[in-house]
């Protein structure tokens, strides 16, 4: 964490794209996983992250992996437009 705070550091890591587990973010930020989860919740309340709507409620009836949707959906968060804008701004600043 050479510059920025934990929250900006977390958004920087997210800026790499792809799926990041909370355990991986915790390891890379040098904090506990519980703190990463708390920060992710905070960023969600603030509109930087959101839970993606998979929209498979009706289709799941005939789906062999219906509950995988719940797995993917339950603990999953993604950047919102506000979150993406913030990471872009950080890119420009750095």
């Amino acid at each position, binding site marked *: 964490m050479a510059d920025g705070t934990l929250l900006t550091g977390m958004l920087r890591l997210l800026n790499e794209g*792809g799926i990041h587990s*909370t355990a*991986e973010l915790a390891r890379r930020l040098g904090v506990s996983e519980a703190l990463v989860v708390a920060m992710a919740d905070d960023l969600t309340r603030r509109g930087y992250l959101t839970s993606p709507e*998979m929209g498979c409620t009706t*289709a799941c009836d005939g789906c062999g992996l219906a509950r995988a949707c719940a797995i993917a959906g339950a603990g999953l968060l993604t950047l919102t437009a506000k979150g993406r804008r913030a990471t872009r701004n950080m890119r420009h600043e750095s």
Partner: protein
Amino acid sequence: MTHSHDPGGPSIPKDPNSLTVALIGQPNVGKSTVFNMLTGLSQHVGNWPGKTVEQKTGVYRHNGLTVNVVDLPGTYSLTANSEEERIARDYLIRERPDVVVAVVNASALERNLYLLAELLCLPQPVVLGLNMTDVAEQHGVRVEPHVLAAALGLPVVPLVAAKNQGVKELMDAALKLAANPDSWAPNCPTIRPEHAPVLAAIRELITGQPLQAQPDADLRQLSPALPVEPGGTEPGLASESAWHLPQYPPDWIALKLLEGDAEITALMQKALPEERWERVHQLLMQHEDAYLDIAGGRYEWIGRMVRAAVTRPRAGVISLTERVDRLATHPLGGLALLLAIFGLIFWLTYTLATPLANWLSTQVLAALDAIAGITLAWAPAWLFSLVSDGLIHGVGTVLAFLPILIIFFAMLGILEDVGYLARAAYVMDRFMHLMGLHGKSFLPLFLGFGCNVPAVLGSRIIEERRARLLTILLAPLVPCTARLAVVAFLAPAFFGAQATLVSWGLVAVNLLVLAAVGIVVNRLAFRGEHTAFIMELPLYHVPNGRTVGLYVWNNTLSFIRKAGTLILIASVAVWALSTLPGRGIEQSVLAVLGRWLEPFGRLMGLSDWRMIVALLTSFFAKENTIATLGVLYGTGEGITGLAELVATALVPAARWAFMVVVMLFIPCLATTATIKQETGSWRWTLATIALLLGLSLGAGIAVYQVGRLL
């Protein structure tokens, strides 16, 4: 000692033998239990003035001192996100209790300390009640209260409120602090120095007075809470400014404005002259994301406190999860494990389920055939043929396939319940990331392994239409369970002992094709845009029999429903077309259609028209391939017998080609209908079918032609 602050008037001194203590904490931390233990029967329950939120106050008497205890509504922070949070913070700021008792859950300190970080920005002294220490111990979390107290610079009292342990000590600490307010010197979270000038500028704008004694605006000198003399009014408030400010400390207002607090922003917009507000607003716009730094600073502070006072001995399930995840979530090791698990699933399916399916199809179908022969002895030949060839050998063959599906679903259910499927999604994304493909298209595509329909529906998470359409285009390329079932049916007869390896290879090749097309889509549609997800991987645990059972039951039921509707109709249709006009199967309508397509099929080595028809009927449901083969090839010795009969009709290269086409063929009816629904375009739906038809047939021809040469 205590001061009431009526917004409209000066502070009124109260009884020196009376104190006010406010209890604050997040919901479900045991705050109300502490309140009940302290106040017993002397409680008053009403509503907060003008609100529907319950207000609970009570009295605690101690050595002739009357302590008024106020149970504030549960709140996560002092940002007015809800009515409860607004009430709690307004009470603290306007009523200024003598001491604030913050109750936190010791097993979730990281989540709970944020509220404390905000409380320390206010002038009231705080005592920390470390509740649920017993629960924390059970979760393997050890908190050292003395170390935490030293780190925070405030009294910390361990509690088990539910057992009335530590509650009296908590109140003693609160009263001691109230009696010695000068000893209040907490270790407050700091804000990054670059925000100090902005805070000072905002403060100056809202008070109309320059900030004194802050020339260099070093934030460590700039206390977020303006020091307030007991009994005095804050400098720079309404009485001293040219305009009426809400009754909050100006530094706190400046901080909340910078954090983007909606309520304070609205209040200040109303309170300040337009020109002043415009200047404040401009400053706020230039520091739109200052919240990230301010809150980030608080989280760093929390991290330091937790590191100092909390230990989590790595034992039990947490340790197991960490050790397994070292391999399971490793970019390469995790992928190897995933492929090994896929291989194991196929191997177990072939070893356990295929003999069972064979038994069902030989014994049960033969018995059903015999029953049909006896009960339909009176009936015309065509009716017997419909029941025997159309229903028993069509739908029946598919139903005899149930053991294979049950084993397959059971293994998926176990993997999911153990907590592995989330890792599979994670590691697959890492793999695609290595190949340069990462984006929102991954998640819907992952869902496609169960069924392509939710994969198409899941593409709704992609906002941009072009990217969404291209993801929908990719979805049918994901090998769904129905297609894997067809592979599981044919592979043992086609490839003998190598069936597991070939099935595994087919899935791997399918994924590589998907990744290759995905990379192109990512370049075209997302233009390298980074999309990120955070996933909380669950702890591994022993699968629950009931959960796995329900999973298998629901999916099997859904399959039987499909067999009773779509597959039944398609089987009857195939039987009818293979029977009409009544001159034998080789002269039937279906044979004519199949033979018409035969020249094309020969390019893939499919010289038997029945194989082409079996492929075509998979449009209704992928499993129809099996039902159609059952109807057209008639009886064999069980499922393996039927598959062997099919295998004899094909040379080895053609078998490979047929399997590749099955894996990449056009989407089924349900998926097609969903594509139409989601894209709202027939043109796009037909384009998807055309593309997949071209891709699958092209791949089939290539595999056969290359295979012939080897």
